[in-house]
């Protein structure tokens, strides 16, 4: 059933590519604004690039979060999922995974493109990609929790980012600094380890919290 659920998530995204592609398009467009607003000068953009990539990736991650449960909530699928004999925690983990594959992974790939366009030297682009691979799922998991909490609220799209962004600041710090460290000739491994630790922690705790949150907000 869990495999079917993942298939369903991907299929929905595949059938409506416009909706699924919005975050990555937003990511690319917003990143393009920085050279225009700051300066096209490589020596100025290069040190700022890691920060720009991560901040914009976070904002892009905020975009699709309402998709996660809203449609299921409105058409009653969510009720069926809540009634399912499968543990809700696992169901949510699968949904989060599907959401990340659809919206997070394109941003990771887009991150490599944006890094190149912001003059990050080619050999450091791989650190950008590794960092985003470890960091964006944490954002998705936290976003899943907040989306579950606010699924019944109309102002969820405004409230969501206000709740999520302060909580994910550690990811931003280690994510952006992994690339900065690498560009300064230091090893980014420590920052990657911290990101991996946060990913493990959030993957093990947040789906359970999301499950409780979903039950609470669905009852209300």
């Amino acid at each position, binding site marked *: 059933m869990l495999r079917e659920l993942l298939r369903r998530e991907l299929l929905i995204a595949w059938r409506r590519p416009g909706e699924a592609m919005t975050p990555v398009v937003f990511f690319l467009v917003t990143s393009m604004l920085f050279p225009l607003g700051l300066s096209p000068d490589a020596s100025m953009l290069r040190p700022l690039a890691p920060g720009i990539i991560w901040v914009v990736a976070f904002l892009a991650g905020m975009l699709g979060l309402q998709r996660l449960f809203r449609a299921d909530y409105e058409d009653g699928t969510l009720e069926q999922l809540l009634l399912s004999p499968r543990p809700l925690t696992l169901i949510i983990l699968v949904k989060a995974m599907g959401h990340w594959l659809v919206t997070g992974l394109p941003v990771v790939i887009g991150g490599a493109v944006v890094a190149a366009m912001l003059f990050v030297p080619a050999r450091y682009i791989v650190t950008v990609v590794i960092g985003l691979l470890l960091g964006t799922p944490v954002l998705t998991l936290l976003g899943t929790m907040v989306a579950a909490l606010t699924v019944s609220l109309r102002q969820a799209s405004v*409230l969501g980012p206000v709740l999520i962004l302060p909580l994910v*600041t550690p990811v931003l710090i280690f994510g952006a600094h992994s690339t900065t460290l690498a560009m300064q000739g230091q090893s980014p491994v420590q920052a990657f380890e911290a990101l991996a630790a946060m990913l493990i922690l959030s993957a093990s705790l947040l789906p359970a919290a999301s499950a409780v949150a979903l039950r609470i907000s669905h009852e209300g």
Partner: protein
Amino acid sequence: MFTWLHKMGSPPVLYRFAERAAPWCKWAAFVLLAAGLVGGLVLSPPDYQQGDGFRIIYIHVPAAIMSLLVFGYMAVASATGLIWRLRMAHAVTAAAAPIGAAFTFLALVTGSLWGKPMWGTYWVWDARLTSELILLFIYLGYIAVVNAFPDQRTGDRAGAILALVGAVDIPIVHYSVQWWTTLHQGATLKLSGSSMATSMLWPLLTMMVAFLLYFCWLLSLRVRTEILHRERRATWVMRLAENGDS
């Protein structure tokens, strides 16, 4: 202990408890506040490096400690409320949040006022300042969530989840920001002994206890308002409103 907690789950019992506790907390807080302020502002000598400027710590440090302590308290109350389905635990959490946010704000403002003469700037992106600012945003997020739901109970429990996630996250934020950069002076108070003169230390400790009692006083006032608002349809509240006294 548990029977006591269980009794506190009843709104009228908690209401009367808060009513009785409030004056004790109030007077104890004001006496200690006066003692701490006299000790801190008059009796203790100026710092050899910072002169009189250091005296702001008598407000700043207790406020900063309370900002964290109140969040911890909210997390414990939230867990209690979720696990034993105690509605009053949620009422207490909701009553504590604005006080905690105010302590956080106070710590930020006093820190920034101190920063101007000492560091030459009101704001630096230093580890503790940044994590305190993030803490303020988490408080505001909690308050926003609790009030966002049309149904009180849903809002309470949604807020409780957020408080628990926040409680796990705050140490991570704290340490990651510390890793990021540090300019703030290291902790002066340590369990193993402090690097502070006794004449400066005792007013600080007095102020900490005073702030804690001040928090208890404000909390007991706010909890009563919160209970009255939540139980406004209950007969005992209506009778209270009619007779003016219980």
